[in-house]
């Protein structure tokens, strides 16, 4: 109930400032020259002081990328991206010491404030006493500037640091697992990421350890024309558990910004990872001008028996979303879950869903997708559920619900289902409904305003998924959904 009130307040508070995150901070950047060639890849690698094998890996990715073609099978329309017209490296000029937050550029802290970096995370960043234990690895334009709680995590043997540092401190782990879930040439965007990724998070949870706090990362895109190429690698060793939260905002821009992140999750026997995302990057103006292009590859490899992975995503931002967090269920009795809320408004286009690849015996998966389209947007759920011959007794349940608000939006559901063993049991349910005038009137006749009514009805529609999010994220996500749909009725 409180959350609904929060939603309502959020809607009211944001009246007239649709996208509060639209601003630009002025921090000196150190750019690599525009465009992409092997020298730029070398520049990035050198900037980070990487070992030779890493540079070779990047260069191989670059060579492969040149051979690949940009995919066009998604239900997305956008002008051709000129990959030579982008910067591939930008970082705050000063290296900031991690042990003292006082040394963090006040502009950066101010940026977090403006972003409303939610809730207590800011306190955590600011080192406020009694702040909740959420570890934040903040990514500000490609380079992590602050990592908190690292020492405390280290007591349990948990490693949580920028991947650029992990390359220096734990090269054996990075080398063993990087690209083992999403191979270098997996797809066009992942391949590009492999060549030029700037930074990202690295997490390792040792055997039997339950990570004592939720890990959290905030991504931002700030430098003009800088594509963001984050790389995240999380390894949950045998019998370990971790919950990872990722939330993003970006400043307003006139030119489209490219984002091609890769997230790899590795799960060994009996390991469990919960990965939650709230994404509200700038979606562009009402005509779709200036929004983020978001081409993301996220995949979990349940290579251990009885391992369990859960993706939860709330996607409200970006002009273009191309994203299919997937689960490769290799281990026997492993399971994968995908819970998604995708909201599109204005001219936004989203083509998102998941892949559940059942390889092991008795593997289970569950997909709950809630798509909401408003304005003149297009929202596509694209999912693949497949059972290989050895995946005896594989089970999947899929539920895909679409909600349409207004007359000019579109919702599409594209499920692919393949079972190569007769013992697989797949269920698929799908509904498409329109937010009805009668429901709206019913709410209004009880005293709720139009925006309040929409927020209430939409929150009801996405409730199953919101409940899967960690508490503090759920509240934020609920606000976001309401704000994203502001003005979509009446």
């Amino acid at each position, binding site marked *: 109930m409180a959350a609904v009130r929060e939603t309502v307040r959020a809607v009211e508070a944001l009246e007239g400032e649709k996208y509060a995150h639209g601003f630009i901070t002025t921090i000196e950047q150190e750019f690599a020259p525009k465009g992409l060639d092997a020298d730029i890849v070398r520049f990035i690698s050198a900037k980070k002081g990487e070992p030779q094998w890493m540079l070779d890996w990047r260069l191989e990715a670059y060579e492969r990328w040149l051979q690949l073609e940009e995919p066009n099978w998604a239900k997305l329309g956008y002008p051709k991206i000129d990959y030579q017209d982008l910067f591939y490296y930008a970082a705050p000029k000063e290296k900031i010491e991690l042990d003292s937050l006082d040394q963090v550029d006040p502009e950066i802290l101010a940026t977090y404030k403006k972003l409303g970096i939610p809730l207590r995370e800011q306190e955590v960043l600011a080192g406020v006493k009694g702040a909740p234990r959420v570890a934040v690895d903040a990514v500000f334009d490609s380079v992590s500037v602050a990592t908190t709680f690292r020492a405390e995590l280290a007591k349990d043997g948990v490693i949580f640091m920028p991947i650029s540092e992990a390359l220096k401190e734990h090269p054996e782990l990075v080398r063993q697992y990087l690209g083992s879930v999403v191979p270098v040439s997996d797809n066009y965007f992942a391949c590009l990421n492999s060549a030029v990724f700037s930074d990202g998070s690295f997490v390792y949870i040792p055997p039997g350890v339950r990570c004592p706090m939720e890990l959290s990362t905030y991504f931002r895109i700030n430098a003009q024309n800088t594509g963001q190429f984050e790389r995240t690698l999380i390894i949950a060793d045998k019998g370990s558990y971790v919950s990872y939260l990722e939330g993003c905002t970006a400043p307003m821009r006139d030119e489209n910004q490219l984002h091609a992140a890769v997230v790899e999750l590795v799960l060994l026997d009996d390991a469990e990872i919960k990965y939650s995302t709230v994404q509200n990057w700038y979606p562009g103006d009402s005509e779709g001008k200036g929004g983020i292009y978001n081409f993301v590859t996220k995949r979990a490899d349940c290579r251990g028996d009885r391992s369990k992975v859960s993706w939860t995503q709330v996607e409200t931002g970006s002009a273009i979303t191309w994203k299919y967090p997937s689960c490769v269920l290799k281990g026997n009795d492993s399971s994968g879950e995908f819970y998604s809320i995708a909201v599109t408004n204005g001219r936004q286009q989203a083509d998102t869903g998941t892949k559940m690849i059942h390889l092991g015996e008795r593997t289970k998966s569950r997909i709950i997708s809630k798509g909401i389209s408003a304005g003149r947007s297009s929202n596509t759920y694209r999912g693949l559920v497949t059972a290989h011959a050895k995946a005896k007794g594989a089970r999947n349940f899929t539920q895909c619900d679409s909600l349409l608000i207004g007359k000019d939006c579109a919702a599409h559901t594209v499920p692919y289902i393949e079972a190569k063993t007769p013992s697989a049991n797949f269920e698929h349910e799908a509904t498409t409904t329109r937010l009805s005038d009668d429901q709206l009137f019913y709410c209004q006749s*009880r005293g709720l305003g139009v925006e309040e009514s929409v927020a209430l009805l939409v929150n009801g529609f996405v409730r199953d998924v919101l409940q899967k999010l960690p508490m503090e994220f759920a509240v934020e996500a609920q606000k976001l959904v309401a704000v994203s749909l502001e003005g979509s009725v009446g």
Partner: protein
Amino acid sequence: MTMLSISNLHVSVGETEILKGLSLDVPAGEVHAVMGPNGAGKSTLSYALAGKGGYEVTQGTASLNGEDLLALDASGRAAKGVFLSFQYPLEIPGVPALTFLRTAINAQRKARGEAEMGAPEFLKTARAAATSLKMDFDMLKRGLNVGFSGGEKKRMEILQMAMLAPRFVILDETDSGLDIDALRIVSEGVNALRAPDRSMLVITHYQRLLDYIKPDRVHVLSAGRIVASGGPELALELERDGYDKFQRAA
């Protein structure tokens, strides 16, 4: 004192005029019944009073305690104390009745510049209302009206009414879809809310409901106008003779 005052009300839906100069006064504390055949405009009257979109008032006035209702949107009218008990209550998946009600109560309070109702008071009121309507309190934790029977939905309407404490209530075909037991429970719920500062408009086809909710006045609506008014005996007359002579009169 007159609470609801409707004068020469004309309402169109699309190109079709449904109410054609309806006039009606309901004094404070009174319960008036509006009866009429199918297509007479009964539901149009309730929707037009509650402020549903698509019901266009082309002429006439409607006021509540002297305040112009037609100038307000649906939520504004609710805040002024108008409550419509729907003939077909809507289902709101994923929104528990308790959430819905608390949001509604506090939206109305806010519109009136009053303090929000706190959680303890709210839950206490909700429990009491559920008990008096013989509803399982757990039903209020489920999606509003989702999977409810017709009778349960009507009880939920009355529960909402009890909790929102409106000044002016429109009961639109509240008896439809109710068995005898449910009809009695719902009627008792309505009767419990009769008060000197609350008026009700009971819209119905059948006299049956008026055995339980005794009206002070009965009006016959036919072809978009009130064509006859009288005491409770008028309802009995209608039950016996049908609407024929009024339809001819219209």
